[in-house]
């Protein structure tokens, strides 16, 4: 209505042009379609093309590789600490350097390795698993990676320049406040948080929208792969929990930089406010790391037992209820701060309750194995190692959920043992399993099986040797975060065993990396579906082409590739000459819209640089926020602004 004649004429002309657009279909398929899609979807070559890419597979791969490098760096710090603790009264590392080491180790592992690696895998695999061509908002996805990278580089750059943080990975006030931590170490930590939160939140929005809107037609919520369910729950948890740490670290930096008094008890602030805000994020964070791993376990168990996971609805409900309960537990980190009695009872009960959905999931996996015919290939070994180790960690968790025991064991090596059991056993074991499992999809080659098995056993046994004795060290009263211990208290043996175990773990990781690098060039070539799996990521070649699928698959059950292995139902009609994807409805996954996919662009990178400069300079002056906002606003506007001002027959995001 009331469009001027000129616009009406344009509309009619565009409608005519729309009819001539080339689309896939029975008349355009096979090699010709593949060649044309490749021309449309391939990114420009060279360094600029590398910086501009919006391909979720490239971004996911970078996320994974970067996170694994941070894992190696964080692991190296752990080895240094274990060397220092190998014998009593050791003076290999000074007390203050030791403070830096455990702070960098914890911060790196939590913020630069564990969460990003899970998001990276999801960014790579979720669109393939859902049968679509791209994530939602691929430019936001690219921006997210660069923010994460810059945050990690800043933290490690500062450490290399000897201004690395030394306040513990949870940076408790008042220690981290202006009075007790002069200098810039605490500010570096707080801004690393800001970087990684921006990155994680962006990736969480990308994943949520991808999972809700980009599924293949017919993939109703009730048919969605369990890994997608796990990542949906995780992404929503990130959205609700990470603002808390972003707010807390902003308050900390403003206390330090412009003299606010949020945590300053002399002016009626409260150090415990920090602990509440930190753990409101910090506890869900643990499940943000653990739940993707449960998704991995479901994927591996299904494939290697050759039957769908037992009691799918129970597993989904367990994921959702764990996600909700995780927000009611944070105070159990604060039992030693003194609470009202009802607070103790409530948070003890809540902490024990969360064991229920987790146990249900474990029973479902065991039932799947019981009923199926498990093949003990490397990924499945990691699943079994996970179940054993995680159950031990879960049991010590129930122990320390009880207040009297927690008050006894708080801040001892018992806690260190507990959370390494749940985080390494619960997340890193399934991670290495799934990396072995998806390696052929990522690279087109298989990892070496025998080397993988040796690596698994070395890791599994080395891990137990490193961390099981810590329970005893903790029961004997050895506090965490103290750079040495006196002789004669019975701590020598457990510490020496832990150090030996830590080096065995390191050797296993080196073996895994060697296997990964060796197989990249010498591994057996992988077919499209080497494990005989059921989900859609295996319906395309290994590695997948830039456009993922030549035609968009249609899903008729929870295990599409097991229904009819030789043929795949598909829908047609997406554009071939421009990047386009299919959106479906949120619950029923009925075809809803055709959505243009953005062209590669340098602006996400430039925006990340501008925002990065703002964040880093705001360590030094509050005015950086004002002046840094200008280039950031320009870059973000240029990102959004259409590059072609002519009206086109159908939308293109240039």
């Amino acid at each position, binding site marked *: *209505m*009331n469009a001027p004649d000129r*616009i009406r004429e344009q*509309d009619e002309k565009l409608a005519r042009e729309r009819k001539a657009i080339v*689309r896939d279909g*029975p008349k355009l398929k096979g090699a010709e379609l593949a060649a044309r899609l490749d021309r449309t979807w391939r990114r420009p070559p060279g360094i600029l093309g590398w910086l501009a890419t919006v391909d979720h597979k490239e971004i996911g791969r970078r996320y994974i590789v970067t996170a694994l490098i941070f894992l190696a760096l964080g692991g190296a710090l752990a080895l240094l600490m274990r060397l220092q603790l190998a014998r009593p009264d050791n003076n290999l590392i000074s007390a203050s350097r030791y403070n830096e080491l455990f702070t960098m180790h914890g911060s790196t592992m939590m913020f630069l390795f564990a969460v990003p690696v899970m998001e990276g895998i999801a960014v790579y695999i979720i669109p393939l698993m859902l049968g679509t061509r791209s994530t*939602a908002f691929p430019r*936001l996805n690219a921006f997210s990676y660069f923010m994460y990278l810059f945050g990690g580089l800043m933290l490690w750059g500062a450490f290399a320049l000897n201004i690395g943080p030394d306040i513990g990975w949870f940076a408790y006030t008042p220690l981290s406040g202006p009075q007790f931590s002069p200098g810039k170490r605490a500010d570096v930590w707080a801004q690393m948080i800001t970087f990684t939160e921006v990155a994680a939140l962006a990736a969480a*929005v990308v994943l*949520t*929208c991808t999972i*809700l*809107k980009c599924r293949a*037609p017919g993939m109703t919520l009730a048919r969605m792969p369990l890994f997608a369910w796990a990542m949906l729950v995780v992404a929503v948890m990130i*959205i*609700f929990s990470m*603002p*808390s740490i*972003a*707010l807390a670290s902003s*308050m900390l930096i*403003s*206390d330090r930089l*412009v003299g*606010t*008094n*949020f945590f*300053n008890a002399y*002016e*009626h*602030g*409260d150090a415990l406010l920090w602990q*509440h805000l930190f753990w*409101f994020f910090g506890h869900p964070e643990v499940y943000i790391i653990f739940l993707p791993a449960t998704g991995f376990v479901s994927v591996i168990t299904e494939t290697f037992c050759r039957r769908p996971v037992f009691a799918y609805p129970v597993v989904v409900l367990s994921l959702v209820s764990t996600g909700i309960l995780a927000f009611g537990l944070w105070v159990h980190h604060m039992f030693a701060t003194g609470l009202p009695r009802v607070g103790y009872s409530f948070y003890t009960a809540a902490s024990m309750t969360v064991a229920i959905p987790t146990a249900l999931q474990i029973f479902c996996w065991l039932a799947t194995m019981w009923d199926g015919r498990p093949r003990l290939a490397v990924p499945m070994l990691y699943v079994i190692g996970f179940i054993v180790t995680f159950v031990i960690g879960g049991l010590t968790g129930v122990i320390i959920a009880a207040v009297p025991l927690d008050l006894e064991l708080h801040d001892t090596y018992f806690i260190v043992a507990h959370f390494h059991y749940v985080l390494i056993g619960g997340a890193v074991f399934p991670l290495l399993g799934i990396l072995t499992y998806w390696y052929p999809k990522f690279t087109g080659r298989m990892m070496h099986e025998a080397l993988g098995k040796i690596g698994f056993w070395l890791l599994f046994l080395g891990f137990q040797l490193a961390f099981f004795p810590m329970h005893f060290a903790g029961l004997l009263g050895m506090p965490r975060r103290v750079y040495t211990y006196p002789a004669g208290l019975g701590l020598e043996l457990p510490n020496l065993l832990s150090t030996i175990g830590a080096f065995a773990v390191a050797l296993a990781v080196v073996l895994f990396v060697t296997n990964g690098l060796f197989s990249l060039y010498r591994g057996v070539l992988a077919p499209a*579906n080497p494990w005989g799996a059921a989900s859609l990521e295996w*319906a395309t070649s290994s590695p997948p082409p830039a456009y993922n699928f*030549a*035609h968009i698959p249609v899903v008729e059950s929870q295990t599409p*590739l097991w229904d*009819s292995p*030789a*043929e*795949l*139902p*598909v*829908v*047609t*009609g997406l554009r071939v000459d421009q990047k386009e994807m*299919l*959106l479906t409805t*949120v619950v029923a996954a009925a*075809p809803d*819209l*055709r959505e*243009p996919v953005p062209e590669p662009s340098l602006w996400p990178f430039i925006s990340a640089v501008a925002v990065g400069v703002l964040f880093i300079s705001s360590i030094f002056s509050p005015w950086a926020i004002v002046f840094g906002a200008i280039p950031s*606003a320009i870059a973000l506007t240029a990102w959004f602004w259409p590059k072609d*001002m*002519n*009206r086109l027959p159908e*939308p293109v995001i240039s």
Partner: protein
Amino acid sequence: MIPVPRFTDDVADLPTTKFGTSSLTWWGILGYMVIEGAAFGLAFAAYFFLMGHEQGWPPEGRQAPNLLFGTLFTIVILLSEIPNTAIKKAAHKRDVPAIRALMPVIVAIGAVLLVIRGFEFNNLNCRWTDNAYASIVWALLLLHTVHIMTDWFDTIVLWLLMRTDLGWEGRRLVDTDENSLYWRYVWLLWIPIYLMIYWVPRL
């Protein structure tokens, strides 16, 4: 082996834009609204947490912020919903001339709001360095100011884009619709902040 395609449906006739929950950006914006809502919600929690420690609120010897500018701000931002709704409706009707006429109005209102906001900061009767009360009050007002400024800026960008021929494109009308949705969120969030800054200290 890659399975052979079995052709079922054709989606070529599907539209490329729809308003509301079909739109991908609608979900993206919802995601960011929840993020911001969570941050504001936790800041509110921090406000009441700090308040719980005090004998008086504001602490003794302090005055509550002056009501005039905060209340004026509230009235103007509530009235801004009238042109905002008109823009949203015009987007659904593809009434581009109406959008082009109304967007400068909402941009001007945003500018007025930012000026009033400056006076609000001057009438808090405290500086952020005074004590924890002052810090959290400044934080709430500053957070909301950032909220207003970012939305004001992207409304200007959208307005400039709507003035070009591309303003007739379905995607840009969806952008307009969702920008209006976001502005509603900005003023909705202001209501609890207004009550916390100006009225809770008077209880």
